């Protein structure tokens, strides 16, 4: 999706032109300043519930049906994450970007209510989760707080969950919407061609398939902080 967006931008790029109106106002039709951004940082994946499931037997007619052997409640645990990001500023407000995040949430099932009294236990398995998604960031400079410019964002992509030393790999998809703040730190007047900046990002991510198989759309909160270089 991101590749297609970048190709369209590349094909339709026009040189900036100044137009003079009757009142002397000059406007520009293209983005000013750096167009490309590369960033990286860290953050946290929030937990998400993957559903309850009872291990059921078929009951004999005289008994309530179904007959529960034990109960399970499964969650994807919280995790730290690392993030890498590239973006292309299409307009002063709009940036198209691609992002890779890597985290290690553990899958956890709380097992209880065993019919023969087996002790309660939380069964776990380690996973490494990769998310590659593409989306759009829209800056809102009109409500900036000093250096900090708020933005909203949205996009979608693919997920890959790798279990237990690559024994099992499951693929799925994600979609997200969120926002945050960007602060540019560099300065043109100092002659620095590249600009550095900080970005804090909070988004609601919805997982489908992969680790969330059969659980429907599974939401979770993701928060990141990163530095970026624009050039």
């Amino acid at each position, binding site marked *: 999706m991101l590749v297609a967006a970048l190709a369209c931008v590349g094909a339709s790029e026009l040189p900036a032109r100044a137009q003079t109106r009757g009142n002397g106002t000059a406007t520009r039709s293209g983005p000013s300043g750096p167009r490309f951004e590369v960033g990286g940082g860290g953050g946290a994946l929030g937990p998400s519930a993957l559903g309850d499931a009872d291990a059921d037997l078929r009951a004999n007619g005289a008994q309530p049906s179904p007959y529960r052997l034990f109960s399970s409640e499964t969650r994807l645990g919280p995790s730290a994450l690392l993030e890498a990001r590239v973006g292309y500023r299409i307009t002063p407000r709009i940036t198209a970007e691609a992002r890779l995040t890597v985290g290690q949430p553990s899958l956890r099932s709380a097992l209880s209510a065993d019919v023969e009294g*087996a002790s309660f236990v939380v069964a776990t398995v380690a996973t490494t989760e990769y998310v590659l998604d593409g989306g759009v960031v829209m800056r809102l400079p009109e409500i900036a707080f000093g250096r900090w410019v708020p933005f909203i964002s949205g996009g979608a992509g693919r997920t890959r969950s790798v279990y237990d030393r690559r024994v099992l790999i499951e693929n799925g998809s994600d979609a997200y919407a969120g926002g945050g703040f960007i602060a540019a730190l560099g300065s043109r007047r100092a002659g620095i061609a590249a600009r550095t900046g900080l970005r804090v990002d909070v988004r609601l991510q919805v997982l489908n398939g992969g680790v969330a198989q059969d659980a429907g759309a599974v939401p979770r909160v993701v928060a990141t902080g990163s530095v970026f270089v624009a050039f």
Partner: protein
Amino acid sequence: MRGLRSVAAIGVAAAILCGAPVPLQAYLRLSASVRGQTTPVAWGRMPVRWFASGTGIAGTSAADLQAAVNRAFGAWEAVPTASISFQFVGFTGAAPSDEDGLSVFGFENHPDEDRTLASTSFTVDTVTGEILESDVFFNTAFPWSASGAATAFDLQSIATHEIGHFLGLGHSALGETELQAGGGRRVLATAAVMFPIAFGRGMAADRTLQPDDIAGVSDTYPDGTFRESTGSLQGRVRLGGRGVFGAHVAAFNPRTGALVGGFALGREGEFVIAGLSPGVYIVRVEPLDDVATDSFFDDPGLDTNFRATLYDHLIAVPAGGASPSFDVAVQPK
């Protein structure tokens, strides 16, 4: 064999997993001594040809019997991951208990076997382990119905179980029972048609195979894609540093609800559960104490003196492969 208690009956030169070491296998399979080795038995050629006895009983004609058995065969043949087929040849005057080269399903009166609803017997080639003949009788000491009557045992359900034996499957331990005042056990619930104790009169639930039955028959007669599209989990059951022979292990997939069972058949407590769709599984271990152990093993070395245990790791099962081996430590009662 199905009944109020059950021991799978095997004919000539066969035994159920006697104490001699057996190859570790995913499901309990009926075995025979073949060239001095205990070997699981199976049909070597398809379709398997069968006959129906031409003698009915009051309320259930020979045609009713044949139709019910045919439907039961259909349930097994419909398993998409198993390569099996059957052919009804015709009615016969031969009895199921005759060793005549014909595989016959029919009624027989066994009033002395007052806890045996039905029984399957085999004739096995002791050189190859191939099943040559298998017969099933339905005990007329009990009332039967091919139409689901509430006061009789469902012929199709019991036939479905016996055909599992006919194919070489042993019993499944996926079920819960309770002791009855007059002795014997009553089944509370099961997760396999191959559980040794039948549901009560009028119950027809066992006409439908469960994931455990499907995994067992597919593992025995796999079709072309079965091995590469499913996986297995493997490990050991340990008690105080030693293996627990005969422990019952169940694998539960919380996404699909499938429950598939196996046994620790190795002397170090080793077990394998195969035929699992790829995914993450919950593992439960329990002693074999819901049914008489001779329904499963002809071995006095079974250990049932430990508590049921839910394992504290989730097991990832890949397609076409096996999980890394793991140990489940159980505690004494």
